[in-house]
């Protein structure tokens, strides 16, 4: 099984057990770098796939919570190299497939070939790169696919139909359906026409679709769960960690456990 197929399989397993897959997001090393692996293990024990945010100085698609976590993690010295070193140290102890969410520049600076090697060794199965549109993605995609890693495409309610098909076809692991036209951490709730949109994406995609942005509570997960295979929970989980609360009860509450 290629690494990106592990992501798809983990989501399919949740579907098979009759519930939406849960994809928790954390900013790596936040709030405390020393707790990174401990927190990651706790989250991976509940989540089906875990999304690891790589801190960046210019998180232009993110709202206040993830901006704050990103800047603070950087201030405390978190880097991509540090994250890989930490993951290596926990090798074999985390079952859930990992997906890295990173803006492009830290990946460029790291070097694509080295990135793919280290990601594979560290149990990372795919990448989400919010400022890398499909048209600019050939080089990174090739480097990742050479190691069986997936580049996960985002689609949005503003994506035209023909482009939606292109993006669904290009994606690996799952298709990331952004629920709103906006940034992460929005508090305005999910849009009324969410169901039709998610159904449309699901029709065009041969991969499972996971919905993200603005998902904070059990009813949000249930709502997207009727029309998508999984739910991505980011800012709300980062806020739980920020408060020093145990993330497991919160994550379990999202899927009614």
């Amino acid at each position, binding site marked *: 099984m290629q690494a990106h197929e592990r992501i798809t399989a983990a989501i399919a397993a949740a579907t098979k057990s009759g519930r939406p897959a849960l994809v928790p997001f954390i900013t790596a090393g936040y709030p405390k770098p020393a707790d990174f692996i401990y927190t990651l293990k706790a989250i991976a024990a509940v989540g089906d796939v875990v999304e690891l945010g790589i801190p*960046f*100085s*210019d*998180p*232009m*698609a*993110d*709202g*206040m919570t993830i*901006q704050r976590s990103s*800047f603070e993690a*950087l201030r405390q010295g978190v*880097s*991509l*190299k540090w994250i890989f070193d930490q993951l290596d140290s926990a090798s074999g102890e985390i079952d859930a497939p990992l997906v890295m969410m990173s*803006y*492009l*520049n*830290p*990946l*460029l*600076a*790291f070097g694509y070939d080295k990135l793919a090697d280290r990601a594979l060794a560290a149990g990372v199965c795919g990448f989400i790169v*919010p*400022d*890398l*549109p499909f*048209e*600019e993605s050939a080089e990174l995609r090739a480097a990742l696919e050479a190691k069986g890693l997936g580049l996960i*495409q*985002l*689609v*949005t309610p*503003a*994506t*035209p139909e023909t*482009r939606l098909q292109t*993006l669904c076809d290009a994606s690996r692991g799952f298709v990331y359906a*952004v629920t709103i*036209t*906006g*940034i992460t951490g929005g508090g305005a709730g999910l849009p009324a026409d969410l169901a039709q949109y998610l159904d449309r994406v699901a029709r065009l995609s041969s991969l499972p679709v996971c919905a993200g942005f603005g998902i904070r509570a059990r009813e949000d997960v249930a709502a997207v769960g009727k029309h998508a295979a999984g739910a991505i929970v980011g800012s709300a989980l980062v806020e739980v960690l920020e408060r020093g609360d145990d993330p497991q009860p919160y994550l379990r509450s999202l899927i009614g456990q």
Partner: protein
Amino acid sequence: MSALLQADEASALLAAAIRGELPDERGRFGPFGGRYVPETLVPAFERLEEGVREHLHDASFQAEFRKELHEWVGRPTALTFAPRLSEIWGADVWLKREDLAHTGAHKINNAIGQAILAKRLGARRIIAETGAGQHGVASAAACARVGLPCSVYMGAVDMERQAPNVDRMLRLGAEVVAVESGDKTLRAAIDEALRTWVTDPEGIYYLLGSAVGAHPYPYLVRELQSVIGEEARQQMIDLAGGLPDVAFACVGGGSNAIGLFYPMLGDDIELIGVEAGGTGNGLGQNAATLATGTPGVLQGSYTIILQDDDGQVQETHSISAGLDYSGVGPEHALLQATGRVKYISATDDEALEALEELCASEGILTALETSHAFAAAKKYAKEHPGKRILIGNSGRGDKDMPTLTKYPARTRSHAGA
């Protein structure tokens, strides 16, 4: 940075640039440029690109743009001979007076052009970012002129050091949004404007103020600013007796520099861009992106940026808010890589000294940004006596009074003083 391109590749790209063939259909200036934006904005950028293709060189757009430049902006701006500066420097010094354009800087050329475009594209409102406040003021004025609401995103640090411009924007009817995130300067303001654009990509027109960002902005801004170089080139022939030997412009994002240089790329004129040298050569002490940066992706474009080994973009320092930016327009990155334009820097102190000298010798209070170009030109004049020098006097310095009052004027020993 010339190592980025092979020699034959560099000369082919420069020839293409001179023939007007760049950016290419993917928005690339050789290796630089492109479009690195969130998926939500991709359709908005495609609509903008389509709109630029349809309108920018259309006769009716051009007629309206040229009419506004003439009747509202006050173009053509003067070319001014600087006799006393020429004498002191031992050169023949000419100034392209963008400080005389409406609202006090070259920024208005781009702002009114894009505001007219936004209107034609059916935008409901305009957002803009600003560093020094000049683009914010220009956008506020241009939006009032075409009748569209305007919100200007401005870093909290910049709001403090450019307070008079904040008040001007408000009086021109714009909303000014204080940006408290990131470094609280121009880069954070652009990030925040992009975040806002994502919330309503169909209704909002983002009026970007420099030749930076994702395609088609570097192209669009260059086309709208090239009026500077087109006028200056002809004025030099008419008034100065010929083209200059060398032309200087300050470079932050690089819109006034590309506007001045672009029409002269094919001429036998040495072109020198001057960045902010700040207080020193260390990372974070300056904004000398091209001099000390490396290739990377920032705010939509593959260009030269100031970053650490991990690809984290670094904060900058300059006395001038308008040059205080960690990136630079992708076309400048190409012009540096091909060797056509030389990029150097001037320090805060050198800029302040140049500002005072220009004030005292020619009665022109220039902007702190522009002062960097004067500082570099003066050095050049000392090393190359007798040259005909053109300086892009990109803006006036009235907005800098809050900064300048912190630096007491060095007493000059005029007769009678």
